[in-house]
């Protein structure tokens, strides 16, 4: 039967021996794992920058007058940069980073389909980020991350930062599109031959759905940015009403991209949740197929709801179809949420930092999703649009959703990537500060928004000061709460506790190789099992009990796969 055994401990230390030199991460590498780490580190750096800008926002809003920034235009620049950086340079690339690292491992491929393209797509990101930040030198963009015309046009935004903004987003869009092509071809062609669609891990499903969205939606952004650049640089008037253009073309095209984009920002996170929750509740994921299909359902529906960002802009009757489709998205999303609750239910929950962030996602995303449905109702949106209610919604889904999932994934996969654990105690401190700070800062925004506080204002009605002080206070806790994470990651990467190949007793393909994986990902060619996960099967029980006796396994599960025995022992933690 087993002819090649992979002894767990020696391999681990061997892998650590051949740790890649740090300099390698700053070079043009074709290894998907190196590129994955490059993405992750770059994205987290931008998280820091975006976060510090958020802190400036909150300091400014401590007082109702223009406060920190004498010049209100600077405030506009700060939140425009904050939104743009968080979305285009943090959340989207960080998921591409996780995908890059783990999709090939999960499908048993040696690399992505187009390694060169992969590296190229990554190396577009740092220059794009620098271009965007260079805006601070030439006059920053101040039209919000949505950059509505005519405000973002040449007449009302002379600053070259707005042009750089468009160029940077153009590069990021191209990078995304290349990444998406790469993911789709990789999953379609490079997976282990025995791995059928329904043997794919849910994270891979989610990445596929995401890639499809990127491929169909992001070119729209590219097209719109092209026209914007024409208007700003070539003297055209495509969006300028003064000369026959139409300012409404921009928001329509932008949201046709950007609503699907919010699912680009959350579907991979949902995929990560489907990986993390079963492992730490020691139960199979509840309703694998439903969750897999709902990703696709969300991807498709996401294309027909863009108008819900323009309920106060569009002609009255054209708002109605968008209202209905937007609300329907609650159904596939609900399938996922309930599936995850079903996964946790009756499990044997282990409260690792990763699991806590995953549960945090569940509890917060539900709120964000429900406020989304409230916003989707046209009459209610007439009150809520353009207020802090929307800011609350978007942070509940983007921070409470995407970022919590990113953190869950980071604690979960850090041992696989570096071969060392993140410190669990610091992780829990991180979680609690984040969770409490998050609720303190973003829950009150719902109220101030409905009550009449518009968003994107540096100066506000003094009657909102109390709520804003509370929010800022929460935001500072939230900001300080991220420090333990950054420190933890930096310290643990060099001196954290050494992790075995399968530290969490997970049963996905990526855990069968060493931590960190060798350059060629795994020895020999992997064979897919008939089910991507299977906690609680008699087989797995036996396995987890350390029972490697083939007869027992055969008796309990029926068909023991020979490779089963080869799996390195998981360090029971």
């Amino acid at each position, binding site marked *: 039967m087993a002819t090649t055994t992979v002894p767990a401990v020696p391999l681990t230390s061997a892998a650590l021996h051949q740790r890649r030199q740090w300099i390698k991460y700053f070079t043009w590498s074709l290894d998907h794992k190196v590129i994955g780490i490059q993405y992750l580190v770059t994205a987290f750096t931008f998280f820091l920058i975006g976060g510090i800008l958020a802190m400036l926002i909150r300091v400014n809003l401590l007082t109702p007058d223009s406060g920190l920034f004498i*010049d*209100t*235009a600077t*405030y*506009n620049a700060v939140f425009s940069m904050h939104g743009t950086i968080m979305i285009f340079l943090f959340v989207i690339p960080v998921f591409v980073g996780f995908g890059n690292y783990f999709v090939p491992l999960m499908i048993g491929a040696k690399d992505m389909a187009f390694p060169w393209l992969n590296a190229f797509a990554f190396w577009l990101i740092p220059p794009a980020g620098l271009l965007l930040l260079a805006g601070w030198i030439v006059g920053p963009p*101040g039209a*919000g991350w949505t950059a*509505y015309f*005519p*405000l973002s046009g040449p*007449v009302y935004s002379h600053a070259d930062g707005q042009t750089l903004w468009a160029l940077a987003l153009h590069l990021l869009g191209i990078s995304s599109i290349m990444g998406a092509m790469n993911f789709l071809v990789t999953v379609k062609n490079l997976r282990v031959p025995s791995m059928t669609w329904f043997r794919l891990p849910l994270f891979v499903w989610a990445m596929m759905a995401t890639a499809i969205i990127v491929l169909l939606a992001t070119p729209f952004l590219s097209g719109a940015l092209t026209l914007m650049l024409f208007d700003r640089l070539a003297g055209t008037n495509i969006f300028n009403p*003064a000369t026959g253009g*139409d*300012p*409404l073309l921009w928001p329509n095209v932008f949201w046709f991209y950007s609503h699907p984009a919010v699912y680009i920002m959350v579907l991979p996170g949902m995929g990560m949740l489907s990986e993390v929750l079963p492992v730490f*509740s020691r*139960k199979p994921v*509840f*309703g*694998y197929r439903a969750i897999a299909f709902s990703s696709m359902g969300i991807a498709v529906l996401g294309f027909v709801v863009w108008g819900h960002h323009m309920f*106060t*802009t569009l002609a*009255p009757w054209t*708002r109605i179809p968008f209202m*209905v489709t937007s609300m329907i998205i*609650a*159904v596939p999303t*609900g*399938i996922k949420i309930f*599936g995850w*609750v079903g996964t*946790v239910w*009756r*499990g*044997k*929950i282990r*409260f690792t930092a990763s699991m806590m962030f995953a*549960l945090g996602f*569940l*509890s917060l995303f*539900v709120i964000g999703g*429900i*406020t989304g*449905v*409230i916003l989707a*109702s*046209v*009459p*209610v949106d*007439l*009150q809520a*649009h*353009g207020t802090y209610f929307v800011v609350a919604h978007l942070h509940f889904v983007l921070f409470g959703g995407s970022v919590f999932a990113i953190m869950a994934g980071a604690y979960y996969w850090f041992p696989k990537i570096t071969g060392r654990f993140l410190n669990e105690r610091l992780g829990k401190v991180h979680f609690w500060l984040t969770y409490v700070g998050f609720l303190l800062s973003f829950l009150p925004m719902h109220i101030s928004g409905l*009550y*009449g506080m518009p968003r*994107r204002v*540096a*100066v506000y009605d003094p009657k909102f000061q109390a709520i804003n002080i509370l929010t800022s206070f929460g935001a500072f806790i939230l900001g300080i709460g991220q420090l333990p994470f950054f420190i933890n990651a930096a310290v643990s990467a060099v001196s954290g506790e050494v992790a075995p190949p399968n530290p969490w007793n997970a049963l996905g393909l990526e855990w069968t190789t060493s931590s960190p994986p060798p350059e060629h990902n795994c020895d020999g060619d992997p064979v897919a099992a008939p089910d991507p996960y299977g906690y*609680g099967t008699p087989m797995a029980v036996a396995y*987890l009990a350390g029972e490697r006796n083939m007869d027992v396994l055969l008796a309990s599960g029926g068909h023991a796969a020979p490779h089963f025995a080869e799996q390195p022992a998981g360090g029971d933690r």
Partner: protein
Amino acid sequence: MNGRTLLRLILVSIGLLLAGLFVGATNQFMPTAASAEAQPIDALFNFMLVIATIIFLIVEGALLYSIIRFRKKPGDETDGPPIHGNTALELVWTAIPAVIVLGLSLYSFQVFADMQNDKDGTLVLHVKGQQFVWSFDYPHDPNVKLLSSSELHLPINVPIRMEIESADVMHGFWVPEFRIKQDAVPGRITEARFTPTLLGEYNVVCSELCGSGHGLMHNKVVVQSQADYDKFVTSLIEPEAQQPAPGEHNAAWGKHLILSNEYGCGGCHYLPDAGIAGQVGPTWVALADRAAGRVADEDAKTYLVNSILYPNKYVVSGYPANVMPQNFGQRMSDTDLNSIVDYLLQQTANPTANGTPAAKSP
């Protein structure tokens, strides 16, 4: 399902429903309702809140219960039961949300359709948004000339249709107490319909990012009796005799431009003589006395002209830069510019230089 479970289920359901109704009935999330549209919208919002609370409690309840009940016992290294799914259950939690959201769509549609209905006796008003002020025009006898106003006065219980336009970028016409919001889109006229039902003063707030002064862009709304409203509109009539003609260096024309809110000066600057009471920018009272010598080697006139054309280079210390629109150079004719400057040059502390300061209280 045995009787005990059924009973528990019923009790939990009743509890959830009560909790939902409680939140729906007692929440104070919305400001005062001052329009006929506000009631149905609030009712819709409260209804959504009932459902939201129930869903929230179900999900968070199940989570909390799991976290407490199903946490790993010390020393227990076994796995949970191998449940991969349950088709019936999955169908239920697909179907119920589907029914809910379709219901919510229908209800929302109903509310919205009622708002869009044409109502008898609708009063049509006109509002123009520009960086960073609103100005309002009222219907009137075509034989008289009416000045634009920087305050929105509305007769109570009369259906209103606002025709909204924008002079520059997108703005959002929003009165929180009316629950009405509609963007002003340059190049087209949009509409908002509502019926004010509560006497009082509110604010029309700009809800669409329109530049650095976006947060400063709000004007007063006054809902008053029909009689008061009529009186107000009459007060806007510009007497025939005082109607100046556009002319080069015509201070009266300059004053007219400011009175009629042509360029939105009144949103920020304060000058009772021209009926403007903005608080954002430097006051214009006795401006002529200060203008000269503000900048070395510039007389009052040059200083004023440059301040209008290049506001960012002439920010008075203590005031925000970038708030004043920087495109007057393109928007303002020389006639208008010179006339306004001439008018401003008349603003000295010594009233004799300025004739009778006919302060008009708004």
